[in-house]
């Protein structure tokens, strides 16, 4: 075959395949049948009734195929949409329920702490316990706080204008996204710089708070926070800023965010208010020696 095309060489094999595909769009069987008829001396294909019926039947089948496939594709798309809507409804209902329960929990917790305060305030031992409790609550971010501090904003890189808009499903460059590690780094640097309290997008961080990644969302204490991420830290703004900016990891993060178009700003704020951390769990409790105070020490462990 290659010898027939002296200039082609190895390339002609592939080229001839393409040529065949491009040139031979009509089934050669038609031409063969026509040639055979011509050889038999017939002028045109005899238009037999059976043949016509057969052709019509095949066309009916073709139409049926097209319609059924169209139906199927449409039904699939609709089904996906319905499932999606149902899931969204489910999620909304659940998160409303969750908010409601969290509200109830807050009320109950206030009630509990008021009752225990009342009880403890009656005795000197109780007073001491109350003081210890107050200190512990400071440390565990159980109280809302206000004060001056730093506001650090991290945000994903903006979609670039020359990104391909056709491939709608194409993922944004994951390096242009804020990762859990970035937030962890910022938070750790802030603690190291002497921050007294930190929150991310209004979620106060306690001593056991976790910053994790789940799919594409960053979770703080298992609650999702979304782009842009605002990290508020309370402390002396000047000292905080100085220490924070001297941190080697922060500097490398700044370089990285410059490279990949992440937003990484910080500002000193006169007045920041951070909420209390949600739901400290009761993890350990011990019986007091005295029989009088037979209750448990409600030191929040979370």
């Amino acid at each position, binding site marked *: 075959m290659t010898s027939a095309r002296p200039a082609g060489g190895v390339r002609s094999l592939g080229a001839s395949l393409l040529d065949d*595909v*491009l*040139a031979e*769009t*009509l*089934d050669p*069987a*038609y*031409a063969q*049948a*026509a040639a055979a008829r011509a050889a038999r001396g017939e002028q*045109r*294909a005899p238009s*037999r009734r*059976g*043949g*016509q019926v*057969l*052709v*019509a*039947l*095949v*066309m*009916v*089948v*073709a*139409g*049926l*195929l*097209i*319609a*059924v*496939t*169209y*139906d*199927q*594709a449409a039904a699939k798309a609709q089904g996906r949409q319905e499932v999606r809507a149902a899931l969204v409804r489910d999620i909304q209902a659940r998160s409303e329920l969750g908010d409601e329960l969290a509200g109830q929990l807050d009320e109950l917790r206030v009630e509990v702490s008021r009752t225990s305060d009342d009880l403890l305030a009656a005795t000197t031992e109780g007073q001491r316990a109350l003081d210890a409790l107050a200190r512990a609550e400071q440390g565990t971010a159980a109280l809302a706080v206000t004060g001056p501090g730093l506001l650090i904003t991290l945000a994903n890189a903006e979609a670039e204008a020359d990104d391909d808009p056709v491939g709608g499903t194409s993922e944004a460059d994951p390096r242009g996204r804020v990762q859990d590690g970035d937030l962890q780094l910022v938070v750790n640097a802030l603690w190291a710089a002497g921050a007294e309290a930190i929150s991310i997008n209004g979620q106060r961080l306690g001593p056991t708070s976790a910053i994790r990644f789940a799919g594409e969302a960053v979770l703080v204490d298992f609650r999702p926070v979304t782009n842009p991420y605002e990290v508020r830290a309370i402390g002396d703004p000047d000292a905080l800023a100085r220490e924070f900016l001297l941190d080697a990891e922060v500097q490398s993060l700044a370089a990285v965010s410059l490279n990949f178009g992440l937003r990484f700003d910080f500002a000193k704020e006169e007045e920041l208010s951070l909420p209390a951390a949600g739901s400290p769990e009761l993890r350990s409790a011990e019986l007091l020696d005295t029989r009088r105070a037979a209750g448990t020490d409600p030191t929040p462990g979370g």
Partner: protein
Amino acid sequence: MIPILGLAAGVLLGLVFDPTVPLWLQPYLPIAVVAALDAVFGGFRARLDGIFDAKVFVISFVSNVVVAALIVFLGDQLGVGAQLSTAVVVVLGIRIFGNAAAIRRHVFRA
């Protein structure tokens, strides 16, 4: 004229009766439709060329649909179903385009 009426009747039948297709057959429907379209365009062009033959048309239609579905089925079994589907669609697509161009030349003389 009769074949076109047949096609329309098929579409109507499918839309009206909405037959359910067995689940295992569903992945092969789109590719079968592309193969069927190729056969239909080929037949139309042959008719305009004056070499239409009912037997060739019926056989090419059935074998086109079956072979296209078989190739995709085989690809699915081998784990390259998506790629083979693409290959089938590309080749049949080129042929449909070529035949459509030939039909256009016949109809519009351009």
